[in-house]
């Protein structure tokens, strides 16, 4: 949830400014929408002045000159027309503002998704997918109000007072000076209110987020708290923490609210000053302001609150600004990452050569972004895989097994040589190589959509092909438990499937278009015994000409392999058939004895 990802520590002033500047730059694409929004806002201000003038004039005539309302019908109608026009202006201002915000969000979301694609699956896997999607979806949404409302309002908060001043001065220079006297204060207020109100909002928001985080954390661990009989204590702790947060936050708010109160004070007092000054002028107690009529008085009185109104409204959008700047921080953190570099050429995989995979002195460095890191994930690894071989990759966790297959699939940069069908991988067009591969990971991926969508996965395959693939994956029984067969929607993250069923659908996805190389990353690690048997049966039925590379920690799967590659701390310590390794290789023997004893292998 975005609430929790809100920065805990206060952002530095300079990074905040940078984020703000970046945000403003992003609005370039939608500047016409913003311009229209501001223009309509300004037009509304001008029409408001006309309306105030008309109404003041009507009242003046009726009260001072005894004109009957029936003689003023046209004036009434004019005001009516102005009111309708103002309504249109207000609506248009909102509409164009919304468009501006939507355009900015679409553009930034595209940038983010493009960036994540360029970073590739390994960089994305560094964090839970939810934390990325929170940035792509929720954090981007936070920009809406800032663009749509705050930015136009910022211009209006300057322009509308200027227009009102220009109208007020000819009417009464004294009132003009009262307005103007507070005008230099407006930029000061904008900074003052801006900083203080933003600070207040930030604190308020942060306190709430922390409380929420604490609450969520303890709820998640509720079972443990119960078992250790600490629920009452935690409840008290929760109450104390809330109280503590309240006291601290109120201290900040007490000061921060003062700033907007000062603005409020000026708006109120200027009405009072205008009223008292005009009243005294009418009574003749004040003479320096020159002659004024009731029309002037009422007109200026109607304008006085409007003079400060745009600035007050701006204050209500500071929350939006604070949120947007916070979101920009997270968004920029993603966008400023360097793209992952992988070797890629423009030559297709030679079609006529047998699809051998040969590695010589293969080294892979840790770290995706920079090559600064010197630690090696793979160190001088060499092997030779013939087409149709069944290859098992073993080793303890962190030995480099997954790194090896990721490198083979073209997700990592490497040093040394990898030759695919006799041609260096670095010179091969990745798409052409990947077209020969199918892959199945540890945890089955089920996307939002039907069974068909999940098997076809955006490729043009027929329903019939999907059936056949599902049959090969031993998964036809899954369709029976679903209401609409192939077209049945699968719930979020396969909520209506067991892990075993989900893995068989994922396997069908890998098998639907026959590949020459099948890469499996612990395909049965998360499965129960029954599903494991089904998946293994399906894998055994894979045609002999298909190379199968499997990472596994299940000893019972090793016997059927043609070749075993055993990795330890990035080095290849054993390579050969299981039988020969069992006889000769100490590392392999140790591995077997260390990993025996799991019932899941029985």
């Amino acid at each position, binding site marked *: 949830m975005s609430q929790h990802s809100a920065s805990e520590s206060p952002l530095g002033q300079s990074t905040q400014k940078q984020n703000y500047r970046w945000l403003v730059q992003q609005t370039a694409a939608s500047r016409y929408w913003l311009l229209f929004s501001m223009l309509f806002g300004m037009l509304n201000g001008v029409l408001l002045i006309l309306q105030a003038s008309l109404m003041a004039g009507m009242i003046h005539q009726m009260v001072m000159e005894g004109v009957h309302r029936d003689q003023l019908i046209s004036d009434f109608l004019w005001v009516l027309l102005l009111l309708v026009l103002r309504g249109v202006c207000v609506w248009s201002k*909102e509409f164009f503002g919304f468009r501006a915000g939507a355009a900015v969000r679409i553009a930034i979301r595209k940038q983010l998704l493009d960036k994540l694609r360029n970073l590739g699956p390994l960089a994305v896997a560094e964090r839970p997918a939810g934390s990325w999607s929170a940035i792509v979806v929720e954090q981007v949404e936070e920009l809406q109000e800032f663009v749509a409302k705050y930015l136009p309002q910022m211009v209006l908060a300057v322009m509308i007072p200027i227009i009102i001043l220009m109208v007020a001065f000819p009417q009464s220079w004294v009132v003009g000076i009262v307005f103007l006297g507070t005008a230099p204060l407006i930029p000061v207020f904008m900074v003052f209110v801006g900083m203080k109100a933003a600070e207040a909002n930030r604190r308020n928001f942060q306190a709430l987020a922390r*409380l929420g985080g604490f609450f969520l954390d303890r709820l*998640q661990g509720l079972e443990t708290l119960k078992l250790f009989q600490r629920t009452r*204590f935690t409840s008290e702790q929760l109450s104390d923490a809330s109280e503590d947060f309240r006291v601290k936050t109120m201290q900040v708010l007490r000061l921060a609210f003062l700033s907007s109160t000062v603005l409020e004070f000026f708006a*109120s007092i200027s009405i009072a000053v205008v009223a008292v000054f005009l009243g005294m002028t*009418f009574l003749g107690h004040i003479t320096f302001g020159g002659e004024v009529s009731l029309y002037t008085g009422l007109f200026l009185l109607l304008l006085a609150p409007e003079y400060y109104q745009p600035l007050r409204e701006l204050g209500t959008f500071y929350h939006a600004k604070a949120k947007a700047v916070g979101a920009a921080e997270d968004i920029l953190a993603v966008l400023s990452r360097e793209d992952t570099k992988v070797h890629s050429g423009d030559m297709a995989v030679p079609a006529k050569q047998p699809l051998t995979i040969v590695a010589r002195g293969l080294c892979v460095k840790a770290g995706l972004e920079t090559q600064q890191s010197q630690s090696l994930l793979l160190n001088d690894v060499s092997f030779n895989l013939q087409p149709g071989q069944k290859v098992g990759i073993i080793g303890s966790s962190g030995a480099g097994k997954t790194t090896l297959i990721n490198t083979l699939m073209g997700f990592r940069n490497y040093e040394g040589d990898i030759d695919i069908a006799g041609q260096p991988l670095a010179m091969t067009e990745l798409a052409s190589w990947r077209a020969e591969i199918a892959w199945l990971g540890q945890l089955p991926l089920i996307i939002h959509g039907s069974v068909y969508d999940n098997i076809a996965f955006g490729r043009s395959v027929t329903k019939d092909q999907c059936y056949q693939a599902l049959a090969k994956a031993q998964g036809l029984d899954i369709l029976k438990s679903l209401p609409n067969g192939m077209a049945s929607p699968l719930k979020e993250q396969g909520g209506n499937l067991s892990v075993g069923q989900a893995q068989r659908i994922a396997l069908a996805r890998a098998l639907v278009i026959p590949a020459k190389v099948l890469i499996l990353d612990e395909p049965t690690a998360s499965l129960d015994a029954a599903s494991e048997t089904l998946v293994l049966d399906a894998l055994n039925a894979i045609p002999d000409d298909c190379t199968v590379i499997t990472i596994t920690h299940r000893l019972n799967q090793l016997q059927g392999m043609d070749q075993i590659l055993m990795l330890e701390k990035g080095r290849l310590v054993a390579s050969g058939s299981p039988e020969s390794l069992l006889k000769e290789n100490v590392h392999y023997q140790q591995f077997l004895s260390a990993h025996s*004893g*799991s019932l899941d292998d029985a």
Partner: protein
Amino acid sequence: MMRDLWFFLKLYRQHLGLLALGILLAIVTLLASLSLLSLSGWFISATAIAGLTVVTAQTFNFFTPGAGVRGFSILRTAARYAERLVSHDATFRLLSGLRCWFFDKVVPVSREHLGYYRKGELLDRLVADIDALDQLYLRLLSPLIAAVTVTLLLSLFLSFFSTTVALLVLTIMTLWIIAMPLIFYVAGKKTGESMGIKQSVLRQQVLDYLQGMTEQQIYGSDDASRDQVRLMERGLIDDQSRMSSLEGLGSALFVTGSGLASLLVLFIASGEMAQGVFSGPVMVMMVFGVLASFEALMPLPMAFQFLSHTRHAAGRLRQVVSTPVVSFPEKTGGVITKGDVRFSGVTCHYGSALPVLQELSLTIPAGSHTAILGKTGSGKSTLITLLTRGLEAEAGTVSIDGININGFSEHELYRGITVVPQKTDVFNATLRENLQLAAPDASDDMLMAVIQRSGLHQIAMTESANAGLLDIWLGQGGVALSGGEQRRLAIARALLKPAPVLILDEPGEGLDIHSEKALMEEVLQSFEGSTIIMITHKTTLLEKMDSVYFLDSGNCSVMK
């Protein structure tokens, strides 16, 4: 429907005084603002008329209205400031109360039911729901009560001058209060709901896109997935656009409506003024009053859009707190001293699937060390859940020391059993707090000793000094523990809480064989006289056990 909200409003009672004060201040602010403008209007007009002749100008009492104008302007400022402070303070208190209340309500909910909420983002949503509820006051109750009060008071005041105008104002404002929220609630409901759905679908699709990146790049379906995301985004923006149009319409209606209302009052009042019912300045006062009073009506359309959201939040929370709870007897039916554990004829299901355990009978004598072996998913963990009353057996009984576990008080049961669960809950707190959970009164020296024994001091490797080890912050925003370190933390907690019965669920998970054995040595040493039940799918630690049972498809057989 509204019963859900009413249920929560009752919780507001505790802070009734503060809440009422907040609303009162909101009303005072609005009235001061209204009075300031209408009095100023009256004052200017009255002085303008009085100024026509020298005599009336000389005798005009300007002190009282002048003071009134100044007074109202200061009152408005002060009341607004006070209102903000009071209402925020009240909101914080409400929030605190709601959270504590919810926590207390959730504690006795059975693990079986709670497990459902722990999945995915549900818990996140519940926390957000509680936040939504405390906003009920600030965004709905306070504006609504203030609007109604201001309308009534203004109409009452106007009725001293003219019944017609008073009735007109009352009618217009009441209509506004009733119609606007209703219109916007109805008009916005469908779009609002669709917007919510589309946003969660978009989130899901982005999640799919990110999680499926390997597949996308291998299968060349990146563009297809991106098209889907783009399509859903467009759908969401279309909905938002409708919603924003509606909001724009609300603002437009407000501007036009408030202007029309004052224009209408001007029209009617000027007719009455011409007939001499009241003077010109009073008419001006009326017009300005109505114009200013609309400030009170401004937040209403938004408030009611918010209502639909809040109602759903309240409904979801009520559902949680009304799930069945585990009830423990107040007074314990016995004391656990020996740790003689018996399952007799126990059958139980999870949901509607096949029985996890079927007429299982098992006796674990006091002081014995027993391993229960089984493959992943064979129902081993269910035994623990039964023993800690996270799940009720459908048939059969579970007893300790000859007493049915349902007879023990909560305190006695959890005193008598120490559990090392399969999943360790690492709290967002210092290491000290994470350990003291098991022994609130343990001194730092005791904690350090346990840290050494469990091998937890290894997490200090990354930190510079060993001295501050207990102050290392764990969990979110702190040191993230590896799977093995989490195991060590769970076992350290167990070492701090001696009990007649110790239950270990997969104690070696995430640890290498050597660490696993060393850690078990420590555990066996500390719990030598206790009954130990170890649940595992590995055969590595079995030689230390007195007896071993094998659990398969709900049935139990002796192996040793």
